[in-house]
């Protein structure tokens, strides 16, 4: 684990060889954490939020929903079976299913 290595290598000369973390350098080093950006920095040092980039979570109406994250253990796990030469990402398969199921409405 990373933390243990740094603890062992706490001598000033050893830590210099390791990559910087977000917790180092008082304001002089920025390292993101894969959360993405929500706007732009202004030339005066401020930040303007771009609301198009801000995450919103759409929670559906859960009334009367009876499915749970689990399936009964008494049922064997269903495996996907596809005809020869077909796989779920094929557009032709999707189109054929669409024609059969949605069809004339």
């Amino acid at each position: 684990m990373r933390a243990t290595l740094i603890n062992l290598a706490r001598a000033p000369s050893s830590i210099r060889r390791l990559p910087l973390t977000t917790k180092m350098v008082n304001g002089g080093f920025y390292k993101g954490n894969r959360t993405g950006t929500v706007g732009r920095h202004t030339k005066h040092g401020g930040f303007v939020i771009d609301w198009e980039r801000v995450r919103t979570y759409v929670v559906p109406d859960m009334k009367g929903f009876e499915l749970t994250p689990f399936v009964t253990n008494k049922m064997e796990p269903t495996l996907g079976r596809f005809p020869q030469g077909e796989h779920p990402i094929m557009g032709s398969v999707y189109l054929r299913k669409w024609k059969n199921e949605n069809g004339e409405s």
Partner: protein
Amino acid sequence: MSLARPLRPLLQRPAISTCPTIARIRPLSTSPLLQEHTKRITKDRNPKRGMSPMRGVGPKQMLETEQYDLPRPVLDPKARTEVKTDEDHGLWGFFHEKKCLPTPEEDHAHGRAWTAAELRIKSWDDLHRLWWACVKERNIIATQQKERERLDPGYGEYESEEREAEVIKTQKRIRYVLTERYYAWEEAREIAETDPEVNLSGVGQAYVPVYEETFEQTKA
């Protein structure tokens, strides 16, 4: 000697009062805006003035809480009033059957995760709601883990982690199925542009099937 004052020339500004016994504030300007804040604010800026613990003199400003008596704790548990809570409060969604921690047997009594094949046949609405059912279950598990940190019973962590692993599997497979569906849809759309049976204009039926008369081909 006469005390009569000499006649002043008309060019001079007339005085407000010539009587020396009445002292009046003579502002430099008569405009109303500048008349405000002319009165000097005399405030005792020293809140500790006159305070003396030796003489038993406290602060001049009384705290708001001093007007109420100190509350007396009810030591007898039977005499305490029951706290009324809403049975349908939303925060109960963080608990399973309103219990603090489940027993390891209860926590272990769960099924297996959904497989991709089982999820592929589900509609968008079902998958969306199933996702949020998984999120709520993980919230319950996280609350229980926090309680376990506080109470430190010494057991139950393993079953909790197993349960969460199954929920996470279901969530990952939901995302997988939805991305599969999206890629297939993208490809299908490209094919449909050249398909004579599909009408993508948005006007009229989208699917216009073309029935082939196969028996005609057998004619000589």
